[in-house]
Every structure is written in structure tokens, then in C-alpha cells.
């Protein structure tokens, strides 16, 4: 079972709907016991980094333990940003620090939020992106962006390059919304399900 962690941040139902469509069992849950039993974990979410405050405590503890047990973890949008050290958006909070660096606002030279379909440039070997054509279009909606790091396997250009996909071992993060990115997004989610 795939646990979709519920922390009251946006439209979680659309992530579940995508897994339903692909024929994989998933559940939206905030219960640490459910998350502990899951074969895979998804941290979805859109909105303000402040929302990740709801993840600290019991949920964070069980997610960290699952990571230690090599349970695949996929962070989407805000969920991915939480996997970094911090975000300018809510500097008082700490992320999981699984990837180095802080998420920062877009420069004033471009409109923010970055909303719409942009292209994914594959930047490394990736199990999550396997079979996805180079320069596939995916749907973004965010005001803060993660830096390019060693684990960046997909990058995107908007007011400079940023991390669109990060991957290291069983840890995966995507800045865009695969559940809203048409066939390209479903392809990526199927790759995650089949890990």
C-alpha cells in the first residue's frame, strides 16, 4: 500500500485518483501507524512551507524510520521542498535535510508563481524518469524553488535553472505535479509504483 501523507496541504485526492487510475492501492492518511506499515510513502502538498509544521513530531519520526528501512519516498512540490534543509518562505522551520540547501524565491525578473507547463531536462540517470522522453512537459505551480544539487536528475529553466527532480537511492522529489501532468506525469507515477 502507498501512504499519501495527509497534512492539510492542498488537493491530496488528485494524487490518490492517479494511483487509482494506474491500479495501485493507496490511502490518504495522517496516522503514524498506517504510514509505518506502508510499502511506499508520498508527501504531496501545495501552498506555504508553513504547512509542513504539521509534519513535525510523530509523522516526521515515522517517515525518518521508513527512510532508514529503504522504503521509497516521493515528495511532490511542497513535499519535495520539505526534503531540503529549509525554505526562505518559512525560515523558522527546518526541513528533513535529506538534500542540501534551502529553497528560495524566484528572482524578480520573472513572474511568480511559476505557473504552467514547462520542460524537464534530464540531468542524470534516474529510475523515476525511466522511459520519459527528454524535454517532456510537466505542470508546475510554485513560488519557491529548490537549488541544483548533486542529486538533481531533472532540471527546469525559469529565471535560471532549478531542481525539478531529485533522486538518491529510495528518495525521490519532484517540484511539479505528476498527478496534473497528463501522460508524462502518469508515466512517472507508474515508475514510482513499480519500484
Amino acid at each position: 500500500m502507498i501512504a499519501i501523507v495527509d497534512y492539510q496541504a492542498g488537493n491530496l485526492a488528485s494524487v490518490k485518483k492517479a494511483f487509482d487510475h494506474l491500479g495501485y492501492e493507496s490511502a490518504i492518511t495522517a496516522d503514524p501507524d498506517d504510514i509505518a506499515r506502508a510499502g511506499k510513502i508520498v508527501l504531496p502538498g501545495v501552498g506555504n512551507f508553513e504547512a509542513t509544521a504539521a509534519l513535525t513530531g510523530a509523522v516526521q519520526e515515522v517517515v525518518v524510520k521508513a527512510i532508514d528501512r529503504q522504503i521509497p519516498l516521493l515528495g511532490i512540490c511542497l513535499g519535495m521542498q520539505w526534503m531540503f534543509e529549509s525554505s526562505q518562505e518559512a525560515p523558522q522551520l527546518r526541513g528533513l535535510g535529506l538534500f542540501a540547501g534551502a529553497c528560495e524565491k524566484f528572482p524578480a525578473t520573472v513572474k511568480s508563481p511559476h505557473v504552467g507547463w514547462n520542460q524537464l531536462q534530464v540531468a542524470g540517470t534516474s529510475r523515476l524518469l525511466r522511459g520519459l522522453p527528454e524535454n517532456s512537459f510537466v505542470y508546475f505551480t510554485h513560488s519557491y524553488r529548490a537549488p541544483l544539487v548533486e542529486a538533481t536528475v531533472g532540471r527546469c529553466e525559469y529565471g535560471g535553472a532549478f531542481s525539478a527532480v531529485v533522486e538518491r537511492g529510495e528518495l525521490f522529489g519532484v517540484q511539479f505535479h505528476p498527478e496534473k501532468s497528463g501522460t508524462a506525469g502518469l508515466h512517472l507515477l507508474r515508475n514510482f509504483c513499480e519500484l
Partner: protein
Amino acid sequence: MLTKRIIACLDVDAGRVVKGVQFSDLRDAGDPAELALAHGRAGADELVLLDISATYEHRSTLLDVVRRTARQLFIPFTVGGGIRSLDDAAAVFDAGADKVAVNSAALADPALIGRIAHRYGAQAVIVAIDALRVRNGNGLHFGVKATGGRHSTGRDAVEWASEAERCGAGEILLTSIDRDGMRDGFDCELTRAVVSAVHIPVIASGGAGAAKHFVDVFCNGRADAALAASIFHLGITPIGDLKQELQAAGVPMRWPC
């Protein structure tokens, strides 16, 4: 490169897609869930469903339509019409919408924009503005109408768009009442005026009739996205053909998709 978006709009009344001209003379155009799926397959970048009657009796019908439409749709999905409170917005999000469009209720109470944005994020709140050209002694300005174009508000569309941004709107959906259903082109002057005044994406609406109108609203109107209804439902301009024409004209498009 970030592409310009082509958004298919379904105007829904009592559970059916309808199409009018200048906000009246409604005709049946089909089932919302079926049309949504067809538009998604054809290459629409987003889908907007507007409940144009938005009466209390039709509310549960609408939520059912939203649920059915969202089920098979894997592109961004916005719902508008009759959203008067945070609870109304929550019901629509729970039914499967990714964004809500607020119009009259936001004019009456601009703080509603912030309340929804605080809970669901600014990216989930579109402020829809129905604008009408008004000529007075000094020239031209764009007035704002409320309740489906029925009531004048005395407000200026450009100023209201700016205020909506400050209140927390993530995007502006700008409809020209003058051009609605006329198929003679978007109001590029109106679009450009609002685009210049805000830093959030602006979706131009009203007047789409041919590919050249889209080229015009992206190049001259500087719109981030363009929305159309009847030309897609009636198959006048297939979305794929439109996107290829735009691409050939140098407008970045998600194509093939």
C-alpha cells in the same frame, strides 16, 4: 521554456454544458465529464468549469459534476461560479478541483481571496473579472460587472486586478463581456492593461474564434494563457491544430502532448 496555456472552458447550467453569446442566449453543448475528457485528450493544458447559474438548488448537482469530471482528468482543473465562502470553496476542492475561481463574492468581500489562499495556497485561487468597455469624456476604461455580467460595480478592472493580487490571488481570469461568444478576437487592449498592472499570470477570455486571435492575445495582449469554450466544443478549431499554428507563429506551446 514555460509555455503559453490553452484552456478549455465548460460553462455549466444545471449539470449540462451550455454556450451563450454575450452572457445570454444559452444552448446545450453536452455532458461536462465527457467534454472534459475529450478536451484533455485533444491537448487542452487546463480545464475550467464555470457554474453559470450557480443557484442554491443546483449546488449538489454541480459538486456531482465536479466529482465526475475530476475522476479521469489528469490536467489542472478549476471550478468557478457561486463560490461565496471558504466552505463553498472547500466543498469544490473536496470534489476534486485544483483551483477555484471567485468573482462576485470577492468583489463584495476581497478578504475572501486571502482566506482561501491561506488554506489552499495562492496558486489555488483565481480571481475572475468580467470587464466591459466604458467610454466617457476622457476616453476608454474597463468597468467591472458582477453576478454574471448583470450588475455594474463602479470599479475599474485594472485596479481591481491589482487589488486582487495584493489580497492573495494566484491568477486573474479576465473575460471581456464585449467579446464573449462573438468569435471576433480577444480584447487585447484590456488584456495588456491588466497584464501590465499585475505580476501574476493573466488568462484572457472572451472572443476566441480562430488561431490568429490566440496569436494576437499572446503576442499583443501579452496573456499567459487563453481560454475558449464554443470553438472547442463545436470542433470549429481542434486544439491540436490550434497549438501547431501557434507554435509555427513562434508562441511556445505544449505540443505534442
